[in-house]
């Protein structure tokens, strides 16, 4: 069996698009998180909902910023 070339897990040309969309979703979720935090009172707030929104938002922001780094030529 011949050696097979190693490619990136995601095609390099998708990085800018992925970065824009993931960061957009992440920022929208961040906005909704802070809207929820400021509009609900301390008693009516649900910790589970807060943490779920935070987790999903940080996932999108984390991967979005990674793809932003990759798209701008900073290969980590």
């Amino acid at each position: 069996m011949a050696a097979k070339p190693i490619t990136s897990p995601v095609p390099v040309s998708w990085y800018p698009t992925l970065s824009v969309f993931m960061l957009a979703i992440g920022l929208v979720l961040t906005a909704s998180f802070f809207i929820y935090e400021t509009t609900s009172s301390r008693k009516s707030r649900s910790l589970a909902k807060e943490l779920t929104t935070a987790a999903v938002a940080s996932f999108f922001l984390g991967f979005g910023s990674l793809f932003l780094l990759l798209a701008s030529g900073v290969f980590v």
Partner: protein
Amino acid sequence: MDALLRARLLHLALFISLLLSVLSHASSQELQIVNAERRIDLTSHIIKVYLTLKVENIGASPASEVNLAFSPSEVEHLAVVKAAATTGKKKKRTYVPLDVKSSEQPAGPNGTKYFTIILSNPLSKGETATLEVLYILTRSLEPFPAEISQSESQLVYYRDSAILLSPYHVKQQTTFIKTPSTRVESFTVVEPTKRASTEIKYGPYDNQTPYTYAPILVHFENNNPFAVVEELEREIEISHWGNLQVTERYSLVHAGARHKGVFSRVDYQTKQGNIGVSSFKHLLARLPPRVHSVYYRDGIGNISSSRLRTDFLKSELLIEPRYPLFGGWKSTFVIGYGVPVEDFLFESPDGGRYLNFTFGCPLADTVVDKLLVKVVLPEGSKDPKAVVSFPVEQRLETKYSYLDVVGRTVVVLEKRNAVPEHNIPFQVHYSFNPIFMLAEPLMLVTAFFFFFVAAVSYLHLDLSIRK
């Protein structure tokens, strides 16, 4: 008085040569060289010597090794020794590469060092073999005069022996020296010696005893760029996210005759062709195909005088330093580029990964005094192992780059006296678990999550004084 001295010297020389021949006979191998032809190419500052030897076994036992002898000064400047056995006649000639290794045996007369060619099939009694040897010498042309002004041409000395230094008896031999131009100031005559345009022919000489040495000195014009990179550091950073980033730090010097007096830019620019002929103002770097984000800069900033041409097989980067380089002048700069990872990184059938990249200096016709190739492996890779087809010094380092915690393993390969013949592929094998690729994004995700948790906990805390 003079005649007496000369006679004594002659006696001494005779005695020494007698002693040498006795010594060599003591350690004699039963080989002789039927015919030796040496072609010395002095057209560049990298001296290439093509040696064709017809070796015959005159002993009883089969011989599997042929020794090449080099003088101590040659060994010091020797960059490459390659050998091949040839079979067949003119058109159907085939070359079989042979192993050459630096010999362990004690130095011969006058500090002669040996290299051993290992024959693929031993020579039995009476058999002959034709060997082609190529060896390359660097920094062996001595500029004379050592200092020249801007308008002068560069003249250099080349020292060698008219008779091939060999541990064997040589029946017949000829040496051809090729000079870059017809301007040859002087050359030592060892009869028969003939000069025709750019070629000097020494020989043929018959029946030379082992270790015969006839020093010659050729003084000729050589205006080729004496481009020497004193130190080149190539850093190849592997990212499994799809890129190979190469950064090359050069410190270039013109190793020819030193520049004397003032430098006139006006003369240099208006009288091109006969002013500053030994200087050079541009260099060609051969980069891999599909390069992107190429840059060329130094401590000041970007150097705009460069041109990049790309095609399917190679990319050529023509770089112009900030000033033309005259003898002794230096220039430091950095070239960097990225290449797609799939062209150079492979997965071997056993599951390991390896990088297959070109060793050596991308600049054409350049000698590198000290070459450092640093392969920066991705974080989390294990068991690095470099495979290079010539001896290099190896060591490991650690480097911290973007989003690194434990640091990246760096395989450092160091080679002294590298010439373009060292631009051959080398491999670095390592094992890497793709799960480590997720370390960087997860680090970013965690950082963002901590920010949200901080916000949540701040809003859940009651920090008001009024109850």
